[in-house]
């Protein structure tokens, strides 16, 4: 599967180079953004290829065009997310207005690539992309509003925001290979998306702490708010707008009260749910191994 990375990269370069009606500077920006993305790997495109090969006997090179299109969609969503959060240091943060234009280009090119492919089930693939993209946009909107105030609403938000993009990548591969939609694939893909988001949240609140600075709600905070002690009252006051000694102090309270442990438990529950579904749905051992490794 490591060779898929370079295939996806080559196909991304090819797709962009084919857009010869675009201004040179626009193409150049798109290429820069793709190079920056490459450092993070092409996990979503790989998921698409993996699910395609799970259900076909012979790998068709054109699947890498679709995987590249999936990566363009994910990159477009990442850029929008970073521009909205405003707290990252990526190249696209330097020119927000131009970056938004690149995002629109990426979304259009990605859709065009899938629609113009020769796969029998390309129209079903486009329907899946549209369904999950809308779902993810909705999740992102709910995240920005920061209105969710209980765990169930929070899980639903991250399922829409992150789970949808994993499910899109997996299901496009399956449908192009078989013409079918498999509930098991959708379920474990959503669980993978949720657990990855919980991991990101844990990492954020225990290190840089930007979510805490912005008073964003996540599992450790919901846990704290159910406690009946002085630390919980302090966090409640902070989330109601009061000041706090320091973010580091807040981070220490989350650890010492078991809030991080709770978030880790929930992450593990989704991980185990995904593992069981993967075991019951896929047959190729290499594919299973890759997915299980990805969740670690």
């Amino acid at each position, binding site marked *: 599967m490591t060779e898929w990375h370079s295939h996806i990269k080559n196909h991304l370069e090819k797709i962009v180079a084919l857009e010869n009606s675009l201004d040179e500077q626009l193409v150049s920006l798109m290429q820069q953004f793709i190079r920056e993305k490459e450092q993070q790997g092409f996990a979503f495109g790989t998921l698409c290829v993996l699910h395609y090969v799970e259900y076909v006997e012979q790998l068709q090179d054109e699947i890498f065009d679709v995987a590249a299109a999936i990566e363009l969609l994910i990159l477009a969503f990442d850029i929008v997310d970073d521009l909205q959060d405003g707290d990252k240091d990526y190249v696209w943060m330097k020119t927000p207005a131009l970056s938004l234009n690149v995002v629109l280009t990426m979304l259009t090119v990605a859709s065009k690539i899938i629609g113009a492919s020769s796969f029998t089930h390309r129209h079903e693939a486009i329907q899946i992309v549209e369904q999950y993209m809308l779902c993810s946009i909705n999740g992102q909107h709910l995240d920005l509003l920061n209105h969710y105030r209980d765990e169930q609403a929070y899980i639903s938000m991250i399922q829409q925001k992150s789970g949808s993009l994993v499910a899109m990548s997996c299901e496009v591969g399956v449908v192009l290979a078989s013409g079918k939609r498999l509930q098991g694939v959708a379920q474990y893909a959503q669980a993978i998306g949720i657990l990855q988001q919980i991991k990101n949240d844990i990492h954020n609140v225990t290190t840089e702490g930007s979510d805490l600075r912005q008073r964003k709600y996540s599992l450790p905070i*919901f846990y704290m708010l159910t406690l009946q002690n002085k630390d919980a009252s302090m966090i409640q006051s902070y989330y109601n707008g009061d000041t706090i000694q320091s973010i580091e102090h807040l*981070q220490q309270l989350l*650890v010492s009260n*078991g809030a991080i*442990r709770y978030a880790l*438990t*929930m992450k593990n529950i989704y991980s*185990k749910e995904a593992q069981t579904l993967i075991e019951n749905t896929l047959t190729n051992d290499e594919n299973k191994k890759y997915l299980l490794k990805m969740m670690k």
Partner: protein
Amino acid sequence: MMKIIQFLHDNMDIAKLLHEGKVSLVGVTAQEQEAIMEAFVEEVHADSVYWQ
């Protein structure tokens, strides 16, 4: 699940017995119990990374 974690957090001796397989939790599946035990081990690692 929050209440279980809170209980174990306040009663670390029971969390230790759980880890040693000497007690088990009522009302959670075997998979959930594994998830809890792994979280208690994982956080030892997280503590050393983030807080020391």
